[in-house]
């Protein structure tokens, strides 16, 4: 409708007209100044995809260096910088913004709201991100380069780094601000903007997972900001938070970091669960088996996630009582996560299944995420973790839950909602290719890393003994295959936008949330000007 000028009254515009060139800014300024949740969602998604490519190229540098023993391509310092930036960019630049993008697009549509609660702040949350990303990238061009300390930024190694470290610290501050504002917006939207009759327990599960994720973000991001602030003052202003000579403790950093860090992994995982909980019922043509228990399980995971952080610190020499407490709490998370897995399987049971690309990725998610969850369980057992900590087993574990988990779920969501977003249908054949190639190459990269880890290969090293050579070769080849496969996704999306066939109003027979049932395809520029009437 003709733009979003607030001076216009409700009657001024025709429905279904989403030609916004009339009054609002156009061209680049439209994107820079927009307050529309859909525009902002689109920007988040594109930003995330670009960051995924950047982080992915860094992963390829890592894998290329590890293709064979010896130093070939890069120096050890640079290798460490690649590892660090790969982790940071993938987590903060690719995965998190991707799901915020989904949230922006979908939450107002799914709860029957006109837009996000704070439309201007929404714009700000997004536009901080490119600047934070720029700070990260700039750090490569400072003397000494980017920090080579791992994405966990452990003190006191961070104290030794050059200026790139400071840029990274401020980038983390900005990313945190963006996440906090974004989450406040999402949480408020969900709590206050639901259409009449859309009770909390009727919301699509995706909204539920984001409500809880938003809470986790608001609770933990400030703590991370505190941790990096302490690092900054230790570096430049003579404080001794992480310095034993001054009575501080390097391990303190780890506690604060993981108090954020563990909830963070569920911040990544929960919205992914949400997407899967929309996709599986749609392609099973059957309602989610246990809606209420899914909500409770999600909450249980969120609560538990605050009391398990020290499972990343089993070898720092914690008192045994502490270790046992964290071990028990950690394995307990398997119970609510299991409830989710069982629910998804039970939803498929006796359904009427079809296997379009979104469903394929959802099944890929289910299969591989569970596998990654199990390796998490193995790591949760302190005696075993003492053997496996800081080895490639851990790398394998978290790529199963984050790549085959979160990333596959994002892919699934992209295929699922692409028709709604663009009004066009993607190429199903190419989508299937994307899935199967991703599946094969993903396992090629990361399955063998379990073996490397069990055999004792440490992570974050640029060079290794000959006994690890074969698995590393396989893994590296898989990485290049996986990377190329992702270009296919780019192609598919562009092709859909430019020349996809027009999507039917209801491309998926089994989908039942408001964005499908109450809005035209493609979705109009403004969602619900009048709240939908719910039965």
């Amino acid at each position: 409708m003709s733009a979003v000028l607030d001076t216009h009254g409700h009657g001024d515009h025709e429905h279904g007209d989403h030609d916004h060139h009339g009054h609002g800014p156009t061209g680049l300024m439209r994107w820079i100044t927009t307050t529309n949740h859909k525009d902002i969602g689109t920007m988040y998604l594109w930003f995330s995809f670009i960051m995924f490519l950047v982080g992915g190229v860094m992963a390829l540098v890592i894998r290329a260096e590890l293709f064979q023993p010896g130093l070939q391509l890069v120096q050890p310092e640079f290798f460490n910088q690649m590892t660090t930036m790969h982790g940071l960019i993938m987590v903060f630049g690719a995965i998190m913004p991707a799901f915020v993008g989904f949230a922006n697009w979908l939450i107002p549509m799914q709860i029957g709201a006109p837009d996000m609660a704070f439309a201007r702040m929404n714009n700000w949350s997004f536009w901080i991100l490119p600047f934070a990303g720029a700070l990260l990238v700039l750090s490569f061009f400072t003397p000494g380069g980017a920090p080579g300390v791992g994405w966990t930024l452990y003190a006191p190694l961070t104290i030794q780094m050059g200026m790139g470290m400071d840029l990274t610290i401020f980038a983390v501050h900005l990313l945190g601000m963006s996440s906090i504002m974004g989450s406040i917006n999402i949480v408020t939207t969900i709590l206050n903007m639901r259409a009449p009759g859309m009770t909390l327990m009727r919301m699509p599960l995706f909204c539920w997972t984001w409500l809880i994720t938003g809470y986790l973000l608001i609770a933990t991001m400030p703590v991370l900001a505190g941790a990096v602030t302490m690092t900054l003052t230790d570096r430049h202003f003579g404080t001794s938070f992480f310095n034993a000579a001054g009575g501080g403790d390097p391990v303190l950093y780890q506690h604060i970091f993981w108090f954020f860090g563990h909830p963070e992994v569920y911040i990544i995982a929960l919205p992914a669960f949400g997407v899967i909980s929309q996709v599986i019922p749609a392609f099973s043509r059957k309602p989610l088996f246990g809606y209420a228990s899914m909500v409770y399980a999600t909450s249980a995971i969120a609560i538990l996630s605050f009391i398990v952080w020290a499972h990343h610190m089993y070898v720092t020499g914690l008192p045994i009582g502490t270790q046992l407490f964290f071990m028990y709490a950690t394995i307990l998370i398997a119970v609510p996560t299991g409830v989710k897995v069982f629910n998804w399987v039970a939803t498929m049971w006796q359904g009427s299944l079809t296997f379009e690309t979104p469903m394929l990725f959802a099944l890929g998610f289910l299969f591989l995420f569970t596998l990654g969850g199990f390796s998490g369980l193995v790591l949760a057992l302190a005696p075993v973790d003492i053997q496996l900590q800081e080895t490639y087993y851990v790398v394998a574990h978290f790529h199963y839950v984050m790549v085959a988990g979160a990333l596959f779920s994002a892919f699934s969501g992209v295929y699922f909602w692409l028709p709604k977003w663009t009004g066009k249908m993607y190429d199903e054949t190419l989508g299937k290719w994307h899935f199967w190639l991703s599946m094969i190459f993903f396992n090629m990269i990361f399955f063998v890393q379990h073996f490397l880890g069990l055999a004792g290969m440490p992570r974050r090293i640029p060079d290794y003994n000959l006994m690890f050579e074969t698995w590393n070769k396989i893994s590296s080849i898989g990485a290049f295959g996986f990377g190329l496969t992702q270009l296919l996704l780019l192609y598919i999306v562009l092709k859909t936008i430019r020349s996809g066939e027009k999507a039917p109003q209801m491309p998926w027979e089994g989908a039942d949330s408001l964005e499908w049932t109450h809005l035209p395809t493609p979705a109009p520029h403004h969602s619900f000007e009048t709240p939908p009437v719910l039965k």
Partner: protein
Amino acid sequence: MASKSRIHAARWAMAALLALISGTAAALEWYMPVGVTRLTQEVYTLHNYVMILVIVIFVGVFAAMFYSVFAHRKSKGHKAAQFHENTTVEVIWTVVPFIILIFVAWPATKSLVAMRDTSNPDITIKATGYQWKWGYDYIKGDGEGISFLSVLATPREQIEGTAEKGEHYLLEVDNPLVVPVGKKVRILTTAADVIHSWGVPAFGVKQDAIPGFIRDTWFRAEKTGTYRGQCVELCGKDHGFMPIVVQVLGQEEYAQWTADQKKKAAAAADDPNKVWTMDDMKARGQKVYESNCVACHQANGKGAPPAFPPLDGSKIANGPKEAHIDIVLNGKANTSMAAFGKQLSDTEIAAVVTYERNAWGNHTGTLVQPADVKARRK
């Protein structure tokens, strides 16, 4: 143990499956080593136990899923049932995993308690992590007083690919840690600069070395031999190049080794009052330089700017010797330039400073004596 053979069977089944998938021979390293301490054996068994458990659950869950995938397809004309919510089922699938977890937690707790019991050691050794080498001090028990540094022994050419890589590529050191077989060895870990981590998979041991703090762990090796591990906490540039090698000797050999070590130490002990000649000092200094400084400042003294400054032509190495001695003694806060005062003797520092001031393009001609260094220690 009754379950051992079952476990082995499972292990073989998995190995066979794997060999099939990858088409590679079974000689590849792909599973947890069994190790040579009781604790690793426990960990090994625990791991197998959990693996079997999760494989069973995994197969169960996905058998159900794949059954649906094949049987309940729309293309086969399957009509969707509309059931949902079933409290009984939901309670079962919450309670059963919970009970399973208790069965996992129990053995894990037992092993963990045993692993953390560092009381009554026969020998206590302090392992200090430096960027990027390990220092060992025998603190109590046989060998008390022995102390040495342990540095990567793999030649640069192998790393750069100009020479054939040996079997123990990157897992070999000049002076391995030596311990007797069958004795409880307690390792105290600490670090001088950043966090390192001391771990040897064959002993089932891994413990972070935290600067300013002491942490401990223990092992009792049941078989003689040489066991290898690596620093397992990212500690900067050469994190991948600071291996740990432990040689487990029989009782007599160990006694022999400690005796030799003491003799060597006595012979090598420098008289701090000795006055050295330039050539001797430079030669000694070059050795010290090669084992302590090359990692950063490089053999040619050019460093790797901007992270590591060159010493060739540097202001400090060509300025007053006091400043030069000071930076080596005390290091530079918040950089990786460590305080070498604790690791090196007066003679060694005097030697390395002399060397740096007269090597490459530096021709100051200064000869630093141990007494000069002593005078600047606080």
